[in-house]
């Protein structure tokens, strides 16, 4: 049974862990991406590339308001229309307004997590506008009526047999396990969509302030189609995407490509600086840019500035041992999964429940921090999110009491000594305590030693056997 993103967290976890096919798919995919990345970063001076990446991102965030104003000015000078949106509702409203002005009926989209974040597809469809996802993976999850389960490879959770059956049902194609055949079917289907669409919508990988340029990274070419064929093009840009210079964008593109898929660079990198110029055969007649906050300024207001450095490469997801067990849908309705998802989903307050669950969905092993091209200390951010929850008194009362008790007795050596001995005696009752009961559901509990180390130490010291050499 697939993971139901609307179910409670505990249910989603159980569904994911019970799904052997899902976990086999996740294993294979994440291992492949991990290996590809490892080879790609070994081929260059990755330490330096990371330092440069972090420096470029830090500069952008430190100067964010100024760069946004510069970006806005240059976009307008390039002939774009710029809109600002505080939240999802404002962004969606702006898109609907633009669609209304042009009587848009068919929208093509290139893969964009920010549009998932604001629930754009649903809103457009409710207004009677057809929306087609054109990234192959996004197209497949859209056909299946599911959200993406990975920011780079959205259909990482599906086997080819599932996809073949889905295409058979929705597109009438014959069953096949040849990916090229499925790909060709999608190409035919989507090509006709591109040719009739009256609006293209994309996200944005980097927005260059000095030239007023929206950069879109794809491998399939759908990003080029969406930004070139329809008469109206709308880019939805999270405000943290801005970079200072062209060189920074090219640098980050390389860092992201190596980290995401192990390529030197992605196949296509489109730098869009406005509508088509006089005499151009193609390109949109209108280009709109929506600068979206939706919680991002709050990330900076609190102590989570590091999270804004993220370039959405997904490397942290591919190395995450927790993601590998549960997949993206277990993180809920959010498009952001894995370690970075566990950090930014609560901060963007995409789903209030997620704020209480996701910061704990990590063993804090640190594998994510090691691969992050922007050197984001994800475990630290997760720890800080946890302590924020506790400060806001969002943790269970029993847990608060238990931690308080722990902190009290370990600070009082005499009390500790008494309790440590008592616990040994009353261990069978201790076992009934909720945390230990939870532990013991799948694992045996350790036994107390007959004597504490401190006592053994004292005895040995006193009778002179404390050292093997004596």
């Amino acid at each position: 049974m697939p993971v139901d993103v609307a179910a409670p967290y505990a249910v989603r976890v159980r569904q994911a862990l019970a799904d052997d096919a899902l976990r086999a798919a996740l294993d294979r995919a994440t291992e492949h991406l991990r290996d590809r990345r490892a080879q790609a970063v070994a081929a260059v001076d990755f330490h330096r590339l990371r330092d440069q990446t972090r420096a470029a991102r830090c500069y952008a965030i430190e100067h964010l308001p100024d760069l946004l104003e510069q970006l806005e000015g240059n976009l307008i000078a390039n002939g774009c229309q710029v809109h600002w949106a505080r939240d999802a509702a404002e962004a969606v409203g702006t898109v609907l307004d633009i669609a209304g002005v042009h009587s848009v009926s068919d929208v093509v989209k290139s893969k964009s997590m920010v549009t998932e974040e604001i629930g754009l597809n649903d809103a457009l469809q409710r207004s009677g506008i057809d929306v087609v996802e054109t990234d192959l993976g996004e197209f497949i999850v859209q056909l299946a009526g599911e959200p993406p389960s990975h920011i780079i490879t959205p259909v990482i959770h599906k086997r080819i047999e599932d996809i073949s059956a889905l295409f058979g049902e929705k597109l009438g194609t014959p069953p096949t396990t040849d990916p090229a055949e499925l790909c060709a079917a999608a190409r035919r289907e989507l090509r006709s969509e591109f040719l009739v669409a009256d609006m293209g919508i994309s996200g944005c990988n980097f927005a260059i302030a000095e030239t007023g340029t929206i950069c879109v990274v794809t491998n399939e070419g759908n990003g080029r189609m969406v930004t070139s064929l329809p008469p109206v093009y709308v880019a939805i840009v999270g405000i943290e995407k801005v970079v200072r210079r062209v060189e920074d964008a090219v640098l980050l593109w390389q860092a992201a490509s190596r980290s995401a898929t192990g390529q030197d660079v992605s196949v296509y990198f489109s730098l869009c600086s406005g509508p088509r110029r006089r005499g151009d055969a193609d390109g949109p007649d209108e280009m709109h840019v929506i600068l979206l906050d939706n919680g991002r300024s709050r990330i900076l207001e609190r102590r989570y500035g590091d999270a804004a450095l993220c370039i959405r490469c997904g490397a942290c997801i591919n190395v995450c041992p927790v993601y590998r067990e549960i997949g993206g849908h277990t993180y809920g309705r959010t498009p952001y999964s894995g370690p970075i998802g566990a950090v930014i989903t609560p901060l963007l307050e995409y789903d209030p429940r997620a704020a209480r669950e996701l910061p704990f969905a990590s063993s804090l092993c640190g594998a994510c921090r090691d691969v992050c091209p922007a050197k984001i200390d994800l475990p630290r951010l997760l720890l800080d999110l946890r302590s924020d929850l506790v400060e806001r008194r969002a943790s269970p009362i029993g847990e608060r009491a238990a931690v308080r008790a722990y902190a009290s007795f370990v600070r009082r050596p005499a009390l500790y000594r008494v309790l440590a001995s008592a616990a040994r005696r009353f261990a069978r009752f201790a076992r009934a305590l909720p945390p230990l009961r939870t532990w013991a559901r799948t694992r045996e509990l350790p036994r107390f030693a007959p004597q504490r180390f401190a006592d053994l130490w004292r005895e040995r010291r006193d009778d002179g056997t404390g050292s093997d050499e004596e």
Partner: protein
Amino acid sequence: MVDTLYPGVGLAAASLLRRSGADVVFPDGQTCCGQPALNAGYRNDARRVARHFVDIFHPPLDDGTIDAIVAPSGSCVAMVKHQYPRLFEDDDPYRRRAIEIGDVTYELTQYLADYLGFAPGDARYAGKITYHPCCHLLRELGIDAQPRQLLAKIQDAELVELPDAEECCGFGGVFAIKNAEISTAMGRRKAKNLAASGADVVALCDVSCMTHLNGIRARDGYSCRAVHVAELLAGSPESEPADQEPADEEYPDAG
């Protein structure tokens, strides 16, 4: 944990340090570094425990009674070195003391290999040993070569590689309770790799990961047992008893 659950690890560690020429003292009144509270999000409680730790360890450091603090746990060392400075505000006098403590706090194998020049003595283990690098040891402290070097000195032992060794065992502190099912799934994956390695025991440098792996082992019944590196190096008999018992035993004790 070492104090109440695994005194053998503590004795082995002390014995190794002594054999390598260090004078070992065990300051009375020490308990825990506070990591469990911090890990669960209770910064204030963690800070209280950290103050206690500083109160116990800073005076002997300050008056020259001790030169270094050595712990047989990578995770606790990472807590003291990396998290303590973040727990105290800039103007808190504990911050400076915590940093001074952090500067001289070492993980056991690191101290033995890098500072003492550990002599193997007669450490002997007739079997196959593999090594699991615990996450905080490996990634926060960057310690990996040292325990491997030390294990290589054990006589009669055959060291075998662990597939996907650097993958987390799934313990993760509060994660093991709050996300017990995922934690166990990760532990079972580690168990599969342990079986694939063909090792009789897996050596590691953290008793918490050891408890988790042996807890799964006792329940699922796979053969490779987790043992603290110190116990193998000391060749101490304490490493032998089955330290985790099935649930229906008379004394199913708690940690």
